[in-house]
């Protein structure tokens, strides 16, 4: 009974989405307030029905309703309750439903938090979001219904959730990632609405900015969680594989980062408008591309669930339609926009432009490396894969260049920056950075060009950020007062850049100075990684809720002192007949010691992987700090105050401008 209600809820929300994508837009185009007024109620209705459908599916999982095919395929009565809940998004249909839930959630958030926006604008934005919902609701109803029944042959028990996915990482990673992916739809909707209106101005940029930043923060968290999960669960200690699925999430992140910076210029200086709109379209298209790559089954990965060609073509059509429609609109409307503001060839505008050039180049590189093999395969020109070295060789120089540019850009001023002044300003940070980088090199013992460049770029970003904070917080009333005076968006930027510095430092150090060894060990054997000595004590057995495990006991020594003991496991899941390796990690701020057991070689000898991973935590901590920076930035007061000003449109802002001029 309930699953049918869920199905009905999906269909009803599709109807509401269709109305939402037509009625308010028609109202906005014809100037009828009565039609525009439908935007918010329709949005709420759509959200309620999707939330209902999601709740019904969760209910089916928790109550072990194996008559629902999706539940039978992805759950089992022995699964602990929290994995039953997270199994809702453990497969294709459910994760798609979650995607839609997020989409309508964002739509609702726009409806709720944009009360101060002009009605015409908000109607158009919600209509565009409605159109996106129509596409995905059609997709789920036509090709991927999570409520399909297995009647009358109801299986006695489910096939279990893939053991890889029975983990805290899966509970958190997809929701965060989807929040990011889907969140860019809001920036996209604002861009499309602005194109329809022909009103691409600073106000538009200011409205889109917080939404873009929030989406970006969620995406950052989602990617970091995925990397962390891969590190301990799947990757035998690797944290980034340049796997097409990872790249699919990195693409919108890179262009989203470019979009955030370009929006800043558009808001503050009113330039780069057409470029910003294009980036908003591209970023959302890349989110859709990511969904297509991951969900259509064209890729070989944990994320590619049992595939169905119909789904692939549907998603491809959706992607094509979105890109075609928005670029057509862009082609017709973008040239309308005129630019008046001026800036010199050395200014913050130029630094941010270069930032965009680098980020877009990085996006292109990753896109080419990811799509090239797929396109060749599709055209039947041969099967090939592009390995990690391709990405490492091409991505690292861009990352280093971005870091170097960032450090200098932090000090630059809008409109015009004096070259001599900037050079003098950079002298001391440069000296400090070189010294610190050299010290880091010496302490890790070993010089390599790329290691130095990576560490230097990271240190440079951090030093420049702190230096600028020091400069800005100078105050007659003391340092503390000066620090308090800084706006939240400035603090957001500081944290974002410091987080990036941490990620760069972590990535460089762990790739260059990490140690990874596979050894054959018998109880009593010792293995050394870095300064650590690992002693294999023995193997034991234990039972979990839905698995049996063999676990190894290892003692970890540093300079003869016992640091910790580790118990990696090899688990057998009887339901799915699968084996899983659970590594055990002694985590630390400056290093991880990682032990995992492989197969049994002879009666008492095992293949063991031991690893020393310096600064690996900085990757995820850095990402977390970046995301916190993003959330802090949108809490800035000015987003609330200025929105109110905007209602009284242009005359008010002109008066405001005069008032500012009059103050000094």
């Amino acid at each position, binding site marked *: 009974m309930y699953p049918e209600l869920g199905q009905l809820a999906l269909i009803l929300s599709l109807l509401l989405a269709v109305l939402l994508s037509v009625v308010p837009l028609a109202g906005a185009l014809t100037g009828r307030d009565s039609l525009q007024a439908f935007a918010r109620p329709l949005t709420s209705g759509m959200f309620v029905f999707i939330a209902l459908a999601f709740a019904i599916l969760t209910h089916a999982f928790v109550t072990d309703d194996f008559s629902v095919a999706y539940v039978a395929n992805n759950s089992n009565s022995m699964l602990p309750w929290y994995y039953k809940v997270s199994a809702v998004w453990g497969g294709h249909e459910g994760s798609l439903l979650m995607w839609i839930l997020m989409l309508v959630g964002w739509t609702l958030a726009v409806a709720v938090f944009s009360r101060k926006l002009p009605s015409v604008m908000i109607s158009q934005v919600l209509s565009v979001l409605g159109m996106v919902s129509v596409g995905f609701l059609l997709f789920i109803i036509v090709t991927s219904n999570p409520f399909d029944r297995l009647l009358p042959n109801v299986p006695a028990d489910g096939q279990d959730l893939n053991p890889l996915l029975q983990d805290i990482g899966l509970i958190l990673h997809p929701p965060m990632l989807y929040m990011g992916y889907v969140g860019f739809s809001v920036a996209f909707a604002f861009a499309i609405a602005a194109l329809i209106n022909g009103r691409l101005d600073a106000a538009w940029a200011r409205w889109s900015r917080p939404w873009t930043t929030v989406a970006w923060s969620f995406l950052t968290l989602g990617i970091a969680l995925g990397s962390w999960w891969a590190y301990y669960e799947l990757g035998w200690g690797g944290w980034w594989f340049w796997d097409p699925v990872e790249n699919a999430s990195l693409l919108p992140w890179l262009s989203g980062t470019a979009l955030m910076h370009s929006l800043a210029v558009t808001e503050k200086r009113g330039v780069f408008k057409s470029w910003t709109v294009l980036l908003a379209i591209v970023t959302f298209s890349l989110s859709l591309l990511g969904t297509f790559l991951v969900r259509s089954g064209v890729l*070989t990965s944990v994320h590619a669930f049992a595939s169905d060609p119909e789904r692939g073509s549907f998603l491809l059509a959706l992607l094509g339609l979105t890109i075609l429609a928005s670029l057509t609109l862009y082609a017709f409307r973008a040239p309308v926009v005129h630019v008046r503001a001026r800036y010199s060839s050395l200014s913050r505008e130029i630094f941010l432009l270069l930032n965009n050039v680098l980020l877009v180049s990085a996006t292109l590189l990753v896109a080419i490396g990811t799509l090239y093999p797929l396109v060749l395969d599709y055209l039947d020109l*041969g099967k*090939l894969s592009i390995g990690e070295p391709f990405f490492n060789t091409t991505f690292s120089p861009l990352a280093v260049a971005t870091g170097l540019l960032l450090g200098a850009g932090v000090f630059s001023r809008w409109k015009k920056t004096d070259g001599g002044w900037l050079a003098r300003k950079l002298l001391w940070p440069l000296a400090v950075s070189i010294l610190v980088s050299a010290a880091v090199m010496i302490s890790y013992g070993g010089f390599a060009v790329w290691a130095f460049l990576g560490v230097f770029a990271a240190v440079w970003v951090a030093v420049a950020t702190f230096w600028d904070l020091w400069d800005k917080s100078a105050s007659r009333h003391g340092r503390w007062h000066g620090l308090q005076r800084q706006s939240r968006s400035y603090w957001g930027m500081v944290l974002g850049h410091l987080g990036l510095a941490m990620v760069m430092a972590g990535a460089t150090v762990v790739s260059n100075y990490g140690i990874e060894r596979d050894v054959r060990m018998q109880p009593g054997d010792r293995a050394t990684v870095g300064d650590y000595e690992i002693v294999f004590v023995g193997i034991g057995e234990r039972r979990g809720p839905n698995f049996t495990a063999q676990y190894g006991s290892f003692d970890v020594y540093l300079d003869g002192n016992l640091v910790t003991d580790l118990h990696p496991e090899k688990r057998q899941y009887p339901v799915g007949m699968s*084996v899983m390796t659970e590594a055990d990690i002694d985590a630390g701020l400056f290093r991880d010691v990682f032990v995992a057991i492989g197969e049994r070689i002879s009666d008492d000898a095992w293949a063991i992987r031991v690893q020393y991973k310096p600064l690996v935590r900085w990757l995820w901590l850095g990402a977390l700090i970046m995301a916190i920076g993003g959330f802090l930035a949108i809490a800035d007061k000015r987003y609330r105050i200025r929105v109110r000003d905007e209602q009284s449109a242009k005359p008010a802002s002109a008066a405001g401008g005069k008032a500012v001029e009059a103050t000094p």
Partner: protein
Amino acid sequence: MHPIRKKRLTIVLFLVVGIAIAVGLITYALRQNINLFYDPTEIAAGNAPVDTRIRAGGMVEAGSVVRDTESLIVNFRVTDFAASVPVQYEGILPDLFAEGQGVVAMGRLNEQGLFVADQVLAKHDENYMPPEVAEALERSSKGQHKAVNAEKAAESATY
């Protein structure tokens, strides 16, 4: 020159330089890092290049896995049921590696025809098979060396 034009010119120059660098890096890196896929039939026929990093894939031949007891070296044969190739790998194999399962190995073919793998990828669950392997199996099953197992394998690959 008019200041706005001058500025536009600088922007265009920046873009051109950026794109040129990107294209240069891509072609440089692509030239070195493309790994072509070969199936066991092609390798056995001598069509695969020697001492070049390639990918090879197929099913792990039943009864072919031999583990050295004193080191981490494993020897096994990868087959498409028409031909098979000896593979050597040193290290820890993925959890899902087993005889009769599909694998993709990355590595180099040496002069003696031994495929020395530095990476072995196994499928992620029992219903899934790497598309290359599925196709290789399908190709060989269409040839004269038809094996009963191959049909079955190719069938399960369409999941």
